[in-house]
């Protein structure tokens, strides 16, 4: 059994519960335990770093200090949390004055950070801490060549290429193929979905989504898998808006990669949580989902 500290991030308890339940269930199948970090707080994301950078660093540093006490790798499932936690850790190590200030602020709350936590993305854990043979051995449901577009988005592989190439990553492809499905190659797999601007610059974000959906579909995919709750929600909940704006009729299910793994591993449908996916996935997956 491998143990990890788990940082779910706000989306998991709010709008993407199926990412959380499927990730936990998949981990269990793979002999891993994701132990939720007690009393974690929001990572602050990019907006907070702009409004007040030091406060944003301290938001993350509190989580890092809590994780450090426990001693395991800290696993984030959201690409934004992953990036921001890593960014804090890097700045903490690179700038002595930031380190001092972070620790002075943490001290006010009775905490201290020493810079020893390894922050990882859950894709990294599922792709690299288990061998592909182990993954294949756990497959109970043959996905029989289901065509899946691996969508990385931006922040899981950039700016720091910790475990895969920043522009041409392969982790998801290996996973998808290990599950018996077919990974569809398409050029825009690491292009941004526009998630961060969907509220404030809606029409620009919809344009980016349109390009992405069009690119994946025209390369023959039946569904898209994502590794980030922002990408998933954006492409799923706003797909009908893209259709209205661009007079298209996309009907592409957007799954979390852990949902696809869950289906292949035959975990119970409650944990896979397909009822939360807005563009219905049942038609595409009909023959694969465990009832």
């Amino acid at each position, binding site marked *: 059994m491998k143990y990890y500290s788990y940082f779910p991030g*706000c989306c998991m*308890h*709010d*709008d*993407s519960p199926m990412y959380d339940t499927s990730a936990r269930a998949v981990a269990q199948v793979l002999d891993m335990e994701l132990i939720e970090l007690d*009393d974690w*707080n*929001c990572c*602050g*994301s*990019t*907006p*907070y*770093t*702009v*409004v*007040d*950078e*030091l*406060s944003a*660093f*301290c*938001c993350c*540093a*509190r989580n890092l200090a809590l994780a450090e006490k426990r001693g395991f790798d800290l696993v984030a499932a959201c690409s934004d949390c992953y990036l921001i936690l890593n960014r804090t850790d890097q*700045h903490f190590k690179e*700038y002595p004055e*930031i380190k001092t*200030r972070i620790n*002075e*602020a*943490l001290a*006010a*709350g009775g*905490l201290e950070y020493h810079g020893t936590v390894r922050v990882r993305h859950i894709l990294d854990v599922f792709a690299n801490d288990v061998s592909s043979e182990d993954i294949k051995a756990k497959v109970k449901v043959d996905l029989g060549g289901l065509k899946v577009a691996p969508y990385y988005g*931006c*922040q899981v592989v*950039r*700016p720091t290429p910790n475990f895969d190439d*920043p*522009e041409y990553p392969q982790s998801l492809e290996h996973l998808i193929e290990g599950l018996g499905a077919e990974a569809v190659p398409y050029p825009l797999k690491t*292009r*941004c979905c*526009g*998630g*961060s601007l969907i*509220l*404030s*610059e*809606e029409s*620009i974000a919809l344009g980016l989504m349109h390009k992405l959906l069009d690119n994946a579909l025209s390369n023959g995919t039946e569904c898209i898998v994502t590794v980030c709750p922002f990408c998933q*929600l954006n492409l799923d*909940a*706003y797909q*009908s*808006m893209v259709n209205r704006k661009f007079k298209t009729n996309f009907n592409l299910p957007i799954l979390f990669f852990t949902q696809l793994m869950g289906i292949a591993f035959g975990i119970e449908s409650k944990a896979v949580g397909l*009822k*939360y*996916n*807005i563009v219905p996935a049942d038609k595409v997956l009909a023959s694969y989902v465990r009832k």
Partner: protein
Amino acid sequence: MMEIRKEGSNDFIQEISSMPGGEKINLCIQCGTCSASCPNANKMDYTPRELIAMARAGMRDEVLSSNSMWLCLSCYLCTVRCPRGIVPTYIMHALESLAMRHHLSTKRTRTPILYKVFSDTVYNVGMIPRFGCMSRFYLNVNPFGALKAVPVALGLLRHGRLQLKSKTLKPQAKHQLQTILDKAKAFGGAS
């Protein structure tokens, strides 16, 4: 280059390079890889390459009142491609930060309002509830604009993805977070 710097104000470039991640701005060779990589460069008043050139020429107000940095998606494609190891994304963040601090943000963007709503929520709740954040944002910018978001919100609600009652931290955890953030705020920024 020397002449340009003499004509412009050096203060602006000092201000940017004193912010974490902004130091490398002077290494820019104006190759334009950042602009070519940016998914939103065509919608910006000035492309990322132009912004850096203008900043170095001391064109502070033109830069800070432009829409450019507010269209940055933080996708870091420019960053992994920059041949000089600059992090243009951090420079964009630094410019957003300066524009907000000096009240120069263009009225054409609503992103600063979103950022403010978001950050206040992090401080007050310790977590981000989508419903609360969306509604506060629309109330701040244009309550009628919220109507357009209704179909999306309904879709989320129908699928159990819109929590009307938000989760929050346990009282002692929230108190600890706020004590830490109050101390950080008292320092007045990272630089």
